[in-house]
């Protein structure tokens, strides 16, 4: 009988203590760190997206996110808090720690094209200050397109089209000063003003366009264009195409395409279309990127991008219509 009890004891040990110790170990791992551990699951939107997609933490709290990706490779970024994980491999768990220093609502997003719906994969972190429970009212000026009352959903064809693709390199050789506010004025408007000005009569149309391209790039600077290029490759190319032609694979079947204005060309905007691009001011483009298409499939980026990011990606978009951007 003693043998029986011994055998039974061993089995009980293996069947009860062994699993219990596994879960105990996990609990200990969670509790023993001084950080608050939050488990987050990153799945492609069609598999449920972020879970949870709303995370609540306190100002000053030491937070450790334990992010698992069950399906495919994802990335993670809370731009406003400067938290990012570049790669979460399927089945792996990536941990990232941070301390939020200010209260607010901070969107986070996946940074990898995990599926055609990747751009929907977003969530929000609410950071509250226990000392000051009410969230501070957001204090930002209305975006430029609103101040200028630009209808960013209207068609904006250019009146003047350059004979050839404008080149900043050729423009540089002209020694022609162009003073213009590109944020509020479209390149087309700038051209029209120059053309009407007798002081520029010595230059032909192409030369004026080349000068505008040069002036534009001088104005935004090589740094911004490079930053914009990185963002474009990461966030936009899958829809708008590597070459800006609107032919990206993720832009093929956007559900919102049907809600677009009947005059608008279907699909993601084609940034190599000279008429549309030259007819748009930076404010218009920035406005569209910031606000998104509201149902057309064009995501909003205002909650993820800083102001500087938005302007730099606009600057990069111009390289699809203006040749020879400055190298950083």
């Amino acid at each position, binding site marked *: 009988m003693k043998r029986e009890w011994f055998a039974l004891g*061993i089995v009980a040990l293996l069947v009860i203590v062994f699993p219990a110790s596994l879960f105990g170990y996990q609990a200990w791992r969670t509790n023993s760190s001084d950080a608050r551990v939050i488990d987050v699951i990153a799945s492609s939107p069609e598999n449920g997206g972020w879970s949870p997609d709303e995370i609540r933490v306190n100002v000053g709290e030491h937070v450790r996110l334990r992010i*698992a990706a069950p399906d495919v490779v994802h990335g993670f970024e809370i731009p406003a808090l400067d938290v990012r994980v570049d790669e979460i491999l399927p089945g792996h768990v990536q941990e990232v720690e941070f301390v939020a220093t200010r209260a607010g609502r901070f969107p986070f997003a996946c940074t990898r094209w995990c599926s055609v719906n990747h751009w929907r994969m977003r969530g929000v972190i609410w950071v509250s200050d226990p000392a000051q429970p009410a969230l501070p009212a957001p204090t930002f000026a209305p975006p430029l397109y609103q101040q200028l009352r630009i209808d960013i959903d209207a068609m904006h064809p250019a009146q003047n089209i350059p004979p050839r693709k404008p080149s900043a390199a050729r423009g540089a050789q002209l020694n022609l000063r162009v003073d213009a506010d590109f944020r509020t004025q479209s390149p087309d408007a700038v051209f029209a003003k120059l053309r009407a000005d007798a002081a520029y009569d010595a230059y032909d149309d192409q030369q004026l366009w080349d000068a505008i391209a040069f002036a534009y790039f001088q104005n935004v600077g090589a740094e911004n264009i490079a930053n914009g290029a990185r963002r474009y490759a990461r966030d936009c190319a899958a829809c708008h195409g590597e070459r800006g032609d609107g032919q990206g694979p993720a832009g093929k079947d956007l559900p919102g395409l049907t809600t677009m204005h009947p005059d608008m060309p279907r699909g993601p905007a084609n940034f190599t279309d000279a008429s549309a691009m030259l007819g748009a001011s930076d404010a218009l483009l920035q406005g569209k990127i910031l606000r998104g298409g509201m149902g057309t499939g064009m995501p909003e980026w205002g909650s993820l991008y800083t102001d500087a990011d938005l302007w730099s990606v606009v600057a990069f978009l111009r390289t699809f219509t203006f040749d020879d951007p400055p190298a950083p």
Partner: protein
Amino acid sequence: MNSPRFELTRIPLFKRVVTSRWVPWLFMALTLPIFLLAILTGLFGTPAGSRNFGIIFVWIVWWALVILVMVPFAGRLWCAICPIPAPGEWLQRRALIQPRAGGKLFTLGWKWSPRLNNIWLQNISFLAVALFSAVILTTPFVSALVLLAFAALALGVSLLFERRVFCRYLCPVGGFIGLYAQLAPVEVRVKDAALCRTHTDKTCYRGSDDGYGCPWMVFPAALDKNTYCGLCSECLKTCPLDNMGVFLRVPGKDLQTTKGRRLDEAYKAFIMLTCALAYSIVLLGPWAALKETAYAVGAPAWFVYAIIFLAANLAIVPGIFLACAWLTRKISLHKFSLRRTFTEYAYVLAPLGLAAWAAFSLSFVLINFSYAWQVLSDPFGWGWDLFGTANWTWTPYFAGLQSFLQIPILLAGLIAAIGMALRTAHTQGVPSRAALPIVAFCAAFTMVLLWLYV
């Protein structure tokens, strides 16, 4: 009948191990927590199959162990180790080690229906698992539910029925292990049949103070096939004359005679053969859409897949074989009924099927085995690193060797099948050429697999 054999139980140490009452318990006590872990990781761990202990250890490590090692070399050895019947068996006996002196088992003790004294239910249960295998084998949660269902069923059945009815008649794995165990080079058999005739107590079937009557409901004294012997070693303990032994023998000896060949077992051979082919086509073939369909359980296309899959298993492949059997019967001048010709020759598919499964398994076991190290350190996919192996990178093992192993295995299976086909013709007393249609069937099957693998 008198082929050479070597009695392993003559080795004192071996004999001590197989007659120890502790050893079966020890095996199960070791596999039970692993089984439990597989269920827990499936239920609570990461849904990413390749990082989940349950998926990797059950469908890669365990599978490789069973089909590549245990079945070909030790027959039903797995059944002696398997944790699934353990709770039920211990409960029936109300003991883990001790025999129950003349005692009654804790069970309603229902007798299994004689009409189900065959493996049709196992054929069905295997097909059911096989049909959903794309999902079961890759989705940890589903996989855990299936394992849990097996365990619950085994426990429930053991409370209602006598002995190991689950293992013998229901377990989807047991069916094919039994079929292929006939090929194994190991057997538990009577040492001297004459001695048994003098012993009227039949303790090997009824049990004694030293052990339990055969849990597999086999009469050990008359054992002549491995198919239903679970290698549990009870008869070695209950035979008062020490007349049971474990033997090394000529592989495949059970298949040398055509005695007692049955349609249910024949169908097991078809199902196994067809599944090996179907998996090779779906999973290894160049048709990605087919693979997706197999995964899309419930979608309209999946139902088409399911119907074709079941038809192939139950009608198409057996149908083609039936045509071959019909030809064979013509050539052998109608000596036997078509049914008998069909059934007896179907056993020829046992070596062919085992070879096909071994070759198929090699193709994914070698490639995926390295996941085992990762899930060992991080069974739940929770970011653990128990043994420092959690981040070992995935590396296919012996990638170049794979087809070098597959080709000889498939050819060996074919040769064995041809040998058996000729032998069957021989035992039936018909000219060897009668086996030709069957040989052609086997050769064609092997060609398709070779084409898929190489």
